[in-house]
């Protein structure tokens, strides 16, 4: 491992994450920024084009507001207080006003403070801790949860590899690892062992399955290459 860490980091691209320099500190800075945005309603939250709610009021909350979320390719209308995190919205709100039961409890609430990775989702191609993003910030963005990683009823090659390599023990942190691995392979289909290790450093597994998780991601990468993925 020490030899691995001595290698120079991969050439830098757009984000620290893509350059292999993703760290929890960097992530938390990001969280702090978005939280800062959230407490200034009107200035950034609904002003930007990313938040395409029609006829947005100048100020939102504290009462629940109607927002649209696109999760795993499905559009949901939900009414949430502005303080509701994306994690909370996914787990507890996505059935309001419809007859569909809540079925998105795969994303897990563990630390609720952006420090463990179990609630990781992909937001417009980038991984975020959904406990540290407000639901109202996510309008107009594509959200992928662990339930959206599978291809229909078929487990994704990453999920298949986790099962085959025993890349899980109790399974509670697993959804976060699956989503982080998916985001990694989406942007870097053939990562080096060091790149895998670094990309998954924002996820904690207390059962200590890291070694097998890395093997699973490598296996999935190889299989997806064979498939031309």
């Amino acid at each position: 491992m020490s030899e691995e860490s001595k290698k120079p980091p991969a050439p830098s691209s757009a984000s620290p994450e893509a350059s292999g320099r993703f760290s929890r500190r960097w992530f938390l800075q990001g969280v702090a920024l978005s939280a800062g945005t959230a407490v200034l309603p009107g200035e950034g939250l609904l002003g930007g084009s990313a938040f395409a709610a029609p006829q947005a009021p100048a100020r939102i909350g504290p009462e629940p507001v109607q927002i649209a979320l696109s999760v795993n390719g499905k559009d949901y209308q939900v009414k949430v207080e502005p303080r509701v995190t994306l994690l909370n919205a996914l787990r507890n709100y996505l059935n309001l006003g419809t007859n569909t039961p809540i079925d998105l409890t795969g994303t897990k609430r563990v630390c609720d403070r952006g420090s463990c990775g179990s609630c990781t989702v992909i937001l417009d191609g980038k991984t975020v801790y959904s406990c540290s993003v407000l639901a109202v910030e996510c309008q107009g963005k594509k959200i992928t949860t662990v339930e959206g990683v599978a291809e229909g009823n078929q487990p994704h090659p990453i999920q298949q590899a986790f099962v085959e390599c025993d890349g899980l023990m109790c399974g509670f942190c697993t959804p976060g690892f699956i989503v982080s691995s998916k985001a990694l392979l989406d942007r870097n289909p053939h990562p080096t062992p060091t790149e895998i290790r670094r990309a998954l450093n924002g996820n904690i597994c207390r059962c200590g399955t890291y070694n097998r998780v890395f093997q699973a991601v490598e296996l999935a990468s190889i299989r997806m290459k064979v498939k031309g993925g």
Partner: protein
Amino acid sequence: MATVKTKKTTKSKKASQIPVRYRVIGTRPIRHDGVDKVTGRAQYGADVQLAGLLHGGILRSPHAHARIRSIDTGKAAALPGVKAVITSADIGPVTDRVVDLGEGATRLQHLRDNILASGKALYQGHAVAAVAATSPHIAQEALRLIEVDYEVLPPVLDLREAMEAGAPLLHEDLHTDDLGTKSMQPSNIAKHLRFEKGDLEKGFKKADQIFEREFLTSMVHQGYIEPHNATAFWNADGRLAIWCSTQGGFTVRQQAAAILDLPVSSIKVIPMEIGGGFGGKIHVYLEPVAALLSKKSGKPVKLVMDRAEVFEATGPTSGSHIQVKIGARKDGRIVAAQAQLAYEAGAFPGSLVVCGMMCIFAPYDLEHQRIDGYDVLVTKPKTAPYRAPGATNAAFASETVLDEIAEWAGIDPLEIRRLNGAKEGTRRADGLVYPRIGFLETLGAARKHPHASAPLEGPNRGRGVASGFWFNVGLKSSVTAAVNSDGTVSLTEGTPDIGGTRTSVAMQLAEVLGLAAADVKPQVVDTDSVGYNDVTGGSRVTFATGLAAIEAARDIERQMAERAARLWGVPASKVKAAGGVYRHATDSKKKITFKELAARLDETGGPVVGKASLDTSASAGGGFGTHIVDVEVDPETGKVQILRYTAVQDVGKAIHPSYVEGQLQGGVAQGAGWALNEEYFYDDQGRLANASFLDYRMPTALDLPMIDTVLVEVPNPGHPFGVRGVGEVPIVPPPAALANAIYRAAGVRLRQLPMNPGRVLEAILTRDGKPPSKA
């Protein structure tokens, strides 16, 4: 769990001949619950949804030690959306008695008081009141409206200060049980225990050198990823249902029944998937509270802890103060060993100091020993078991002193362990005589491993070795197994699956019946749907529930042979079963496979169900591990980087080798975190300063190297396949192995955990100007 009985081999091995070459055992089939867990479909406790569900919250003491003068819940109860508010008064009066929880006994008053404080709050985070409301937000707001009048008392945070006469008392009515005699004065020392063997003074007289050392370890948390949760529904018919995350549905049932004063049969516990436990999900915290809220509101109530609550109010494992005195001869032979272990119990008695006492010298054959243990109250959360509870602290002390002796005697660290190592027939200080064990085999395998002889180049690097022991327990398990017409078997278990035991138990049933692992459909069910089971703990499930599955399989096999006999119109004694094929003893044309026979059950007498309920305590097999680790110590920051790690363990027989390797790697990961980083950090008022994953930092992918594992298989004579428990042993050696490696790398002996950068750097800076010794 504290008592270990002498083992004897299992009696009946006649029903079927277990093949020597296994078809299923030792292979690596995929886990039955794998797809559910990787797709997010697996249902954990916090995912439970019920019609009319209310959300609860718990008010916790901000003080480490305070008398509760009064609690006013009026404003909270009046908040719209609030459906129930409770305090300890709602539990009702209690006649104190000792309750047996299957895994040890405790005073009912203490069990109740830890759920909701009565009279005094004894640690920051101690539950004081609870509410149920129509949303989690309303519940949180209601908690803020509860007014508690506290008389703040001085906290007692240091173990050694707590033991002194005159220290503030947690329980004014608690007297020390001092070797069986009650002390006159009340005290924070709940218990003093002693194990003695031989003549200590005589032993020390033979020593060429006596090593006397003192060790401190901090309270650490199990750190399971899934927070505690409980959903309860107290039905109008008086029946109570509890959905929760637990290592044992039946222990939740027993504890809830005792606290709520209900017969066990009126409670049904539904254990959901469990996101880690490591010993910390045996005590109940939320379940009885959710039940009382449900009783008062008439609705189902869900409680889910946040991470800070998990740290502040659920079982960490004991911090400890350990003194070790070992006498050795110049040839490396140990002639006498003495230890005194004081363990933090937290706010209520019941640390697992006795386990530390049993383990501290367990790997060695020592003629003269005395081991004293103290169970000490401090104003911190009540401690709970954590993976080989008590043993890791103890091994940190004994195994680093042994390393010092090896250096003094000029003997290789593996060799000094071999020289003194325990084997079959060795008697431990607590009385047990070992049956066949595999400690020496782990030392041999460690020596042969390339890691032991690989050159370790570069400055500030060192290699350390340490061993460890855990008894592993047996206890009680029940299963039923029903044959399906498609030739599969549905296996019903009651031991929650924390790390793959559904599969490792199913594999044993499959082996006996000649089926594939995938042909067995295991499930963990509620307490109404299977016979009694003790907890998933003590590294017992693959062993004990496995034994039950083997017995159930033999039961099925016997019945299936009768069915084949009926088909052929011959006596059952004429049918021989082997490897899933039933044959006529003399007529070679008459044979039928399990699957074919399963399809014909209806015509031969109806369904076939096998069952078994066993107490396996007498045949559990203890486990030993020996670890080798290389580290690099940064002399400028004190940071320790693990370069290479090898864990060798006697596992008896690995049923599913991937899971066994995973247990070894997981134990090392946790042991390394405990050794280098993790600790409960209290301020002087007894407030926990690091109740989050950012500040209580557990190892991530970048902190750990690949961890190599070596599975040594010395079969446990108490199990037909030779299974020993494997999950706990691997957390025992890491802190000592790392301390020994740090010494070789930086020339400093650390005797306090964690060995974090600050502590290592301080040791380096005060090192007598002595250069680090070579490995």
